[in-house]
């Protein structure tokens, strides 16, 4: 056992490189939850489903509408068995999460999430 210098970033090891940057720098939620839930989202999309609602990147308020939108658009079914597409959907989702702070303070947070 050595000093744990890498947690929670060691979770990147379980993720494809294509989602490292958005998973790390998205400003919503918490780093640990975001990295853990990114893996859950990828697995769910790859299986053609939405992840459990608690896979919310540590920001339930912000991720719930995005989860709903992904479901309404039928993206999980499209992503089934296509890892590259699942990664693209996830990158987009994380981009939108990161974009929330750009709408503030012109909009309050709830409105920014709605946007």
């Amino acid at each position, binding site marked *: *056992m*050595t*000093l744990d*210098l*890498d947690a929670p*970033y*060691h*979770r*990147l*090891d379980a993720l494809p490189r294509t989602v*490292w*940057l958005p998973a*790390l*720098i998205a*400003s919503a939620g918490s*780093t640990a939850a975001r990295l853990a839930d990114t893996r859950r989202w990828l697995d769910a999309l790859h299986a053609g489903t939405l992840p459990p609602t608690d896979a919310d990147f540590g920001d339930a308020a912000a991720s719930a509408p995005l989860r709903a939108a992904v479901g309404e658009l039928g993206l999980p079914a499209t992503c089934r068995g296509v890892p590259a597409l699942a990664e693209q959907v996830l990158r987009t989702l994380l981009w939108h999460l990161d974009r929330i*702070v*750009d*709408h*503030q*303070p*012109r909009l309050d947070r709830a409105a920014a999430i709605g946007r």
Partner: protein
Amino acid sequence: MTSPLAARLPALVAHLETDLLERGAAVRLGLLAALAGEHVLLIGPPGTAKSELARRLHRAFADARYFERLLTRFSTPEELFGPLSLKALEDDRYERLTEGYLPTAGVAFLDEVFKANSAILNALLTLLNEREFDNGAGRTRTPLISVVAASNEVPVDESLHAFYDRFLLRVPVQPVSDAAFGALLALPALPCGGAEPAPIARAELAALGPAAARVALPEDVLGHLHALRGWLAGQSIAVSDRRWRQLVALLRVAAASEGRAAADALDLWLVPYVVAHEPAQVPAVAQWFVESVLQAAPQDAPWLSRAVEAFEAQLQVEQSAPAEDGDDTAGKLALARSVGGASEGNAMLRIVSETLEAQSRRRWSPVHLAARLAQVDEVLQGKARPARDAVSARAVALARALEGRVWLPPELAARLRANLAHTLGVLDGLLARLAAVRAGFAALPEDASLAAEVPAPVALSA
């Protein structure tokens, strides 16, 4: 209070290893084993100073006769234990004249020990175990302090395992490394005749036993030994109950001889030489000690580094991001360039261009900037800084613990210090990069209008 022996040990060890290269561990283990009444097996090719080490070891003890033999399949008991006494035979007694042979030695060196035949090995087993020698009808006490044995390899014959197990410390000895080869060639032809420190008296040796018995084994040391047992099981390395008991006794002697009232985690550097069944296992157990006991392995923090790289990349993206839609700076810039073609207008053009280029960069909301700074701070203050502080504290604690150590080889101490210095260097580098990233995000142009455009709260009517 430091005992006279503890005060003399550094000089004794230094004298023992004079002009011996890369034998720090072997020298210390040999002397410590002798103090603990244990025997040492040096495993390695010929010409690696094994016999020289044993010869020097006997001079560390007062009144310790030295005995040395190279054993072969054809060695006879007479060569080790002395010739039969003809006079005793006349009296129908089967006795040996042991004077000058192994039964009267204090320190003995037995080269190629596993090549001996079973008659010799059986007698040796009793001698090593009980320090007694069956001479005819009687059993006599021997003055044996320690046997240093040597072998090219670990015995594969199962019949030799019991004898092999009698050597508590099994120390691999290799030819000097390339790094020390130059020093090997430059060694003086004649040994330096420095003053020999006063040898260890039998009374001091006898007093060490009771002192060792009083040495405490703290909970953390016991915890490490419990963990080691599990780890060894995972490595399929079996250690007998007797060997565990002997290991604990050795730890106590190590602490007592250094004048300590309790063993500590650093004493566990001895463990690889006791529990490893063969030389190839020693490095893995030594690594267990460095990683699991001392947590002093060099670390590169690869995933923390990825996080820093990610924020560096994001900063570059945001520094070079163009202004959002609706900005006509690009058109103004093109116009300025088209009208400022003359050379006298270049300075003005540069000023105008710089101003317009600055305006062409994207401006960020204060909430965005605050979020980025908070994110970088999470890595910097939340992870990298505490990690650096923890490693630094460990380095300080290690340096303190290493003070006054006689047994822990200087090469190992230097490696432990270097390992932690490496990790500190990695973390210092990441901290510097994070500080630069933070400054970069803090310097991103802010869109002041966004802050000014915060709408007033709207009262909701019923």
